[in-house]
């Protein structure tokens, strides 16, 4: 079972069991559902964005594998105070660093669900 502790280390399991930023916002600037097709991972993400284009608050409700939920929990912890452009420039390595582990190709989509949904939410906020 070598390597198992890598992906399912206590930090990830902790974020999975008790995700940070869980819940809903009173008056979100934008709400978006993110899904992994063929997977069943789903999150409902909400952002509060200031007029200056800075994320002031974030919350999500989700269901899915440990990697998707921990990944979302970890990324949402990073969002407050960041500008929309900053968030858009984040990529897969940033999430992998947060997770502290390299995720195999079959699970990359799980790990990135939180970030990608955030970025889609920003895009749809801007196209409003």
């Amino acid at each position, binding site marked *: *079972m*070598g*390597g*198992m502790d890598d*992906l*399912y280390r*206590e930090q990830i*399991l902790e974020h999975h*069991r008790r995700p940070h930023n869980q819940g809903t916002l009173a008056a979100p600037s934008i709400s978006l559902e993110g899904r992994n097709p*063929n*997977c*069943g*991972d*789903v999150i409902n993400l909400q952002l509060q964005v200031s007029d200056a284009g800075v994320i002031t608050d974030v919350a999500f409700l989700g*269901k*899915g*594998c*440990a*990697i998707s939920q921990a990944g979302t929990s970890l990324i949402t912890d990073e969002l407050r105070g960041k500008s929309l452009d900053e968030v858009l420039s984040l990529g897969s390595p940033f999430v992998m660093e947060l997770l502290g582990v390299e995720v*195999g190709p079959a*699970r990359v989509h*799980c790990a990135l669900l939180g970030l990608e949904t955030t970025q889609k939410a920003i895009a749809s906020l801007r196209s409003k």
Partner: protein
Amino acid sequence: MTVRLAETPVTTWHNADGTLDPVKVRAAYPILATRPGGRPLHYLDSAATAQRPQRVVDAVTKYLFTANANPHRGAYTLAQMATDGYEGARARIAQFFNVPATELVMLGSATEALNLVARSWGKANLRRGDVVLVTEAEHHANLIPWQQITREMDADLEFIPVDDVTGEILWDRLDSLIKLKPKMIAVGHVSNVLGSIAPLAEIAKAAHQVGALLCVDGCQAVANMPVSIPHTGADFYAFSAHKMGGLYAGGGLWARAELLAEMAPIETGGDMIHSVRLRDAEFTTGTQRFEAGTPDASGAIALAAACDLLDEFGREQIHAHETRMIERILRELPEVLPDARILGPRDARQRAGLVAFASELIHAHDLAEILDRRGVAIRAGFHCAQPLHEQLEVGSSARVSVAPYTTHEDLDALFAGLRDARTVFEG
């Protein structure tokens, strides 16, 4: 094609008492002796695609290196050998299903077969307000084509429901649903999530009483239990080669000659025509009319060789072996993972080939990943049956499927892996 009916079991694959010996069977599948990622392979995902026997690859190799030419059109010896190879394979596959070769359309997959039924039969026969009846448990391949054609023809798609809790298909609802006078009932022979065997004879009877046709998706049945298509009562029967040990490409559709004769081809091109002029074409008759383009001779030969081997194993024996494996899974799973919600019947005898379950504690993907550390290969997700998962309010499920080559060691590794996972997630 050699045809051997395993009435007296071939001892190569059997125990003295005539039961299948999976350890002997494994010798026929070279991949089972490999160690992907450095771990032994406990392949419990045959419902997705079966492993390929040496025999199948040998048959393909032999054909390609001794008889390969374009079938049907050649006036030379090699082309005749190719034609004999292809049509001989069709005959062998037809015999496997107990149908005439003249009624077996050779296609690229079950998906293609089901699309053909929906689009050709559907387009010609469905009118506004007509009803097509499917179950809530259908594989996408036996659902979306019906969604598409009913929308196009302004017909209605109705559903035989599943029990939200047990996941069993509520066949007794057919009594009232049949009053909708469906024109087509399309169901899986064995559900690829619930594992349950559909009571086809009864469904056929109900269907035919109101003039409906029965289209059966046989993908999950044909490799796991004896299937004599005429005895199912089906009007259309579709299957895929790769679930039986053939190559990926390949599959077929059986329908009675009269039904085929009334159907328009969907795909057009070479090898399916009678005569062609610049502005119109007359199509040929029989199965060939649906087989546009160069026939997949090596695919057909692979499938015929796979049929040979399944018959050597004995399909009754395969079914009995797999039922024993499933019994063990149904018995031990609740002990090892108490929160596992088993989808579908609790009685192994009502199943063929597979068990899917969901756990609140451990998501199916995490489970599959942890099992993989022990070389145990199971499937996680929707298994191309997303609506069923929504009906059951299951985010995704883990599916264990068995085959003639599944051993108790495979299940030992499965349960050991499940214990690992529980340890990890219970913390």
